[in-house]
């Protein structure tokens, strides 16, 4: 499909990268983002950035023109000017340019050495395994959150078996799981605490509320056991 200069597949690729960055940010995988952008950004077509720049200049002109009008007339005039002027650009190209600029901004932030990073405290580093990447966040001594990125959610059969293994090994009672296309949810209860696990597409989130203080190794083992089982 050709859309006046912007190929559908190129637009699709840009939107896909945007969502992939969002996924990697979910687990704080800065290295993953750098790799993704280094691989993909060389394909950037300058024409999209140019179209975005062209639109920015038009907006500046509109702003300038509006300052000559009384305040109460500006909103109406702005709508009129926007409707008129947007015909002179290809909106899809402008949108592609906006997203590409966002990628560039993120890439620049990660590639430039910054003093800030030396003063940054408690930056949690993601753990990368073969089938998943996860990040463990400690909220309090008894409350934790784990965020994971997996290749894909399991099918219902695998999922039910996984829950049974998790419940049996860690001596928790499992709730009736809910699994739908692109989504899953289950809870684990015991005298030790409560665990809520929910997933959507490639993201999995686990929230732990425990009765006693535990060390992070205990939680890491539990998180990895859950992830190993649901990614089997």
């Amino acid at each position: 499909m050709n859309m006046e200069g912007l190929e559908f597949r190129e637009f699709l690729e840009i939107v896909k990268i945007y969502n992939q960055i969002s996924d990697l940010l979910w687990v704080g995988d800065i290295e993953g983002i750098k790799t993704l952008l280094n691989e993909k950004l060389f394909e950037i077509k300058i024409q999209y950035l140019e179209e975005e720049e062209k639109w920015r200049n038009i907006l500046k002109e509109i702003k300038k023109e509006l300052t000559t009008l009384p305040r109460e007339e500006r909103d109406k005039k702005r709508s009129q000017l926007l409707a008129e002027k947007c015909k002179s650009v290809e909106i899809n190209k402008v949108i592609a340019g906006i997203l590409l600029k966002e990628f560039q901004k993120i890439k620049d932030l990660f590639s430039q050495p910054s003093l800030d990073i030396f003063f940054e405290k408690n930056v949690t580093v993601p753990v990368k395994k073969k089938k998943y990447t996860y990040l463990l966040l400690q909220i309090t001594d008894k409350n934790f959150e784990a965020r994971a990125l997996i290749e894909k959610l399991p099918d219902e059969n695998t999922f039910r078996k996984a829950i049974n293994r998790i419940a049996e090994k860690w001596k928790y009672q499992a709730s009736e799981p809910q699994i739908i296309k692109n989504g899953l949810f289950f809870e684990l209860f015991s005298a030790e605490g409560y665990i809520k696990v929910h997933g959507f597409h490639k993201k999995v989130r686990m929230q732990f509320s425990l009765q006693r203080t535990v060390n992070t190794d205990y939680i890491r083992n539990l998180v990895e056991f859950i992830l190993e089982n649901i990614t089997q």
Partner: protein
Amino acid sequence: MIQIPFRVYTQILSLSRMNISQTSDHLANAINSGSNLRNLGQKTIHLPILELVNLGYTEKQITGIENNMLLYNIGQKVQHINSYFHTHPSFLQSVLINKYFSGDLSGIIAESVFVYYLILSLGISPYHIAHLRPYKKSTFVTPDFIILDQNMDISKAFSGVFGQLQYNGIVYAEVKGSMGYIEPERVKKALEQLSRGVAHSNQLGIVFVLNRPGINHYVATLVLVRG
């Protein structure tokens, strides 16, 4: 989980031919009264999954809303949730990263329900949807969402109502959430925004309204528009 009835406006509106002000009045009236709408049935929304949809596709996050209902009701910002969501160096500022919590959540809930519907009901890939609302203030041209409908899933979903829809696979969407009835002015803004991208192209536009006419009673309405 919650059940939300979905409806679709029975006509596809032509943005290049209509008077937006008059149409907005008529549309708001149709949405609020339930007239000229075709029922699409009740959709089940699993809230734990909606939370994750929300984290991926909106500016603010609705996680923890049950625990913070008191503060939410008085519209107060809940500070600790902000730091709770920091998993990256704080000097990194980007709309993809910054999530914050405030009292005004109806639009965010509507956006989350819309994406949930696209992915879990219509089968659109999560990687084919981009949330562009954060760029709207500075650019005026981006819709709330752009959907790259590679498999024409939207056409398939509404073929029973409108027959085969012809468009180039690109769909712009404007989402409006309201805790009561929807006002014509808000529908007008959505149509004006869509008209900038859709009116002179072979693209499809959607206005999605999620409103709450009564306590615990949400209603979702879709309006399809084209050039």
